[in-house]
């Protein structure tokens, strides 16, 4: 954490001083969605284990009453998070081949991926959301 940083030399200016732009937002969002997917995968794995041992009754409250809406909202967020990370991860693989570094195209793709990730999210939840 920043307070534990003991190096007295000046640090490079960080988030606070830069104007937000598309490529910066998409880079930060890639990390944020990665952490989101981590939490989601852990939750799904725990759920699979509970199912295997017939202990899913202990989390039945997640699918009852108003909690069902909280769970659904979380899963919709997770679907967007996975969609975004999948699309932007594909972009990372293209970068590994040295492709996709032009400034204008990078800005466009950053914005495009944020919006295109809505499509699989909406398709899944409008199709199977009931």
């Amino acid at each position: 954490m920043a307070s534990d940083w003991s190096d007295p030399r000046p640090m490079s200016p960080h988030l606070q001083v830069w104007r937000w732009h598309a490529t910066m937002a998409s880079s930060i969002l890639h990390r944020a969605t990665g952490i989101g997917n981590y939490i989601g995968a852990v939750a799904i794995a725990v759920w699979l284990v509970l199912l295997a041992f017939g202990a899913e009754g202990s989390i039945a409250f997640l699918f009852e009453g108003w909690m069902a809406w909280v769970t659904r909202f979380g899963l919709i967020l997770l679907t967007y998070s996975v969609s975004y990370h999948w699309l932007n991860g594909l972009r990372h693989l293209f970068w590994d081949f040295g492709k996709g570094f032009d400034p204008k195209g990078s800005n466009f793709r950053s914005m495009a991926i944020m919006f295109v990730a809505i499509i699989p999210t909406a398709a899944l939840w409008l199709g199977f959301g009931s």
Partner: protein
Amino acid sequence: MTDYRTPAAKVRGLGASGHGTAHFIAQRVTSIALFFLVPVFVWMLATSGAPDPAATRAFLASPMGAIVTLLTLTAGFHHMRSGLQVVIEDYVHKAGTKAFLLLGNTFLTLGLWLVTVFALVKLAL
């Protein structure tokens, strides 16, 4: 006392200990696997009748359901572990906290992966 050692000599032998390239490659290999696996897994799970317990258990117990879930979670946990490791190394600089979080990351991903494999084998066999 004057220190005559160069900065390079001081850091040699510390740090990534030469495993950085393998880490980088593993992150790419698992991401290529997940590129194919995640859409298939999400589609199969979404059409399986989940979260209904009986329907989800039937999906996980079916050969295709079990295999796709195993492949996806195996590549996923590997990718998650190396991904979060980089996040921890980037933002946590206090040695004790960092070691604690890195250990937690390893135990959680490896442990939960093995428990999930056991649970799936139990369901499917």
